[in-house]
């Protein structure tokens, strides 16, 4: 093998750090387009991780998964989302997010530390790979992004981050799981097609991509 096992472990750790940094970067954004570019970067980093895991385990499924992740969540979906941004200038910056960004970054860091502590005390004793702590923290950060933002594209980025986290965890925990990751990606595409239709309709009806406070939908 060209790369030594020690180097592969180092590479795996490096990609893990890049993934967490990209997630924290997304928490700190009030503009939509850098967030979309960050999710694209993160998907490529995760695709890189899958390649490293393939080199470690020899499981060819991980190569397919890397390719699908890079193409769908690294290129295709971000392109669709950036197309939405370009055609709808109002959505470039999330209203009111600027003031909340510092506190969201702090909460994000607390999630990273707290998430790791929870992983160490609850999940690690269940004989999981210590590296699973990275997708676990990523999962928590994705929930934070989804539920603290109002812009539909920001929420969509959070959703993609969540998918990244679970596929990453799946590849670490049970790479041989039959067909599940592939089905997840296929459904991802179906979901995005739907989201695209609803986003377009939402844009036409509301003239914004930010969730309105509708009186009828309260209570």
């Amino acid at each position, binding site marked *: 093998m060209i790369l030594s096992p020690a180097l592969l472990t180092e590479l795996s750790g490096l990609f893990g750090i890049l993934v967490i940094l990209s997630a924290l970067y997304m928490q700190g954004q009030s503009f939509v387009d850098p967030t979309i570019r960050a999710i694209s970067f993160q998907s490529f980093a995760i695709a890189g991780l899958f390649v490293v895991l393939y080199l470690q385990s020899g499981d060819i499924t991980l190569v397919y998964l890397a390719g699908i992740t890079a193409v769908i969540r690294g290129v295709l979906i971000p392109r669709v989302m950036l197309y939405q941004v370009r055609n709808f200038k109002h959505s470039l910056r999330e209203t009111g997010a600027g003031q909340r960004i510092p506190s969201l970054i702090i909460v994000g860091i607390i999630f990273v530390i707290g998430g790791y502590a929870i992983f160490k005390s609850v999940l690690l004793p269940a004989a999981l790979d210590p590296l699973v702590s990275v997708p676990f923290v990523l*999962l928590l950060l994705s929930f934070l992004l989804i539920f603290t933002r109002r812009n539909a594209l920001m929420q969509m980025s959070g959703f993609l981050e969540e998918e990244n986290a679970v596929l990453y965890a799946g590849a670490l925990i049970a790479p041989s799981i039959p067909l*599940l990751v592939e089905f997840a990606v296929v459904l991802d595409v179906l979901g995005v097609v*739907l989201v695209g239709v609803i986003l377009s309709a939402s844009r036409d009806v509301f003239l914004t991509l930010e969730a309105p406070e509708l009186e009828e939908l309260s*209570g």
Partner: protein
Amino acid sequence: MVLDQTTLFVILLGAPAAGAAISLLPRDGIEVLASLVSAAISVAVSVLFFLLGTTGTFGYFYADGLTRVMAVTISAVFFTSVAYSVFYIKRIKEPFIRFRWYYSLVDLFAFTMLLAVTVNDLGFVWIAIEATTVTSALLVALEREKTSIEAAWRYTLIVSAGLVASLLSVILVYYSQGTLSISDLMVKTPASTLLMAIAVGFALVGYGTKAGIAPMHAWLPDAHSEAPSPVSAMFSGILLPTSIYALVRTFGLLQGSSVFGPMQNLLIGFGIFTALLAAVIMGYQRNYKRMLAYSSMENMGIILVGFALGGVGAFGAVVQIIAHAFGKSSAFYEAGNVLVAYNSKSMAEVQGVAKKLKVSGYLFTLSCLSVTGAPPFGVFVGEFMILSQALSSGNFLLAILLAVAYMYAFIGLNKQAIQMIFGQQSLASESEAGPESPHEPIAQRENWISVALPFANLLISLIIGVYMIPLVLQAATGFGL
């Protein structure tokens, strides 16, 4: 030629799938016919399964008592919802999607739910439940109003985010047990009890989101109230129980392990919290469809408690699933009749319904009574069994909380429903209820379809209750009542 049972499973699933494809053919009216025929075939096959007592593994499929009950319930509500759609959706002037797409998606929606409850693989159960979101999201937005589009977005986002957590549950089950086959998993002892407990925890978050379990329920009142009434009926009557089914299948894998007790308490805790929260909020609603949505949430909380308790409680939960599905679909069809007549979902604007919609008004009242556990409807039997299981297992605090939830829900829903049906409408509110919506004005009110379908479903809910009453009396005797 006698068909084997595997072929019957293929027909059960193939009928709605074929209906979905045929609905898209460019021939006028074919979508209604294809959907009705496919739903009728599904009902016939699932009833056959029920009568045959189909149990065991059949190729890719698995069946036991719960499967049979779920298949019959899903097929029946699918059929009545398609039939009710004939009356309801033609009144929508600017639909978000074409009607042939509507019928096709309804067929696919039913297909995904039937797949979820019959397939013998937890991975495919997850895929089928994820696919229910894909097939139903556009149905929520059908009426092309601001609120319906926002509700569809919230539904898609929250439910998809939740379901990704349940994918993690599936991965952990595979890692722990080395298989996803339900029939194999049911006879295996958990290799790592802690790992399986974590898997159940993720399943609770994921499938619980789809089932409307608090605090992950935020999508539910919006989607139920904004979807067209036949779709609301399918959401409430069969989609929520299908998600509970997936959760219960995962939870059942802990049977006999050391973590069963703590996880049982966790499920009971979430269930009773959901029931109490929904029961309290229900009484403060201003939108009658939203009120029915909270009632569904309350029922799902109680059903979850029943399954977690096991024994008679689990049997009660199954009875409640069937009875609630028929009772609540009836209530949503009636709500659809009211909406068609009044063009408003506001209870303040909809008063004295019994004067304008004589049959629908009374049926709506009876439907509300049925889903809140009024005897002798089936929900009463289910709730009684769950309560008796709580008492017999010595969990008196839970029994008290259940009784409080039953009482709050009963008063909260029926007080408002009776006010709406028999109350007096003020002149001001009557003039406000103008016909500026995609629905027809008051002239066209009820027809035989719009009344016969909810009546039939309500009757089934009643028959289930009456049929089961001897069991209630038996349980009551056991407590010296």
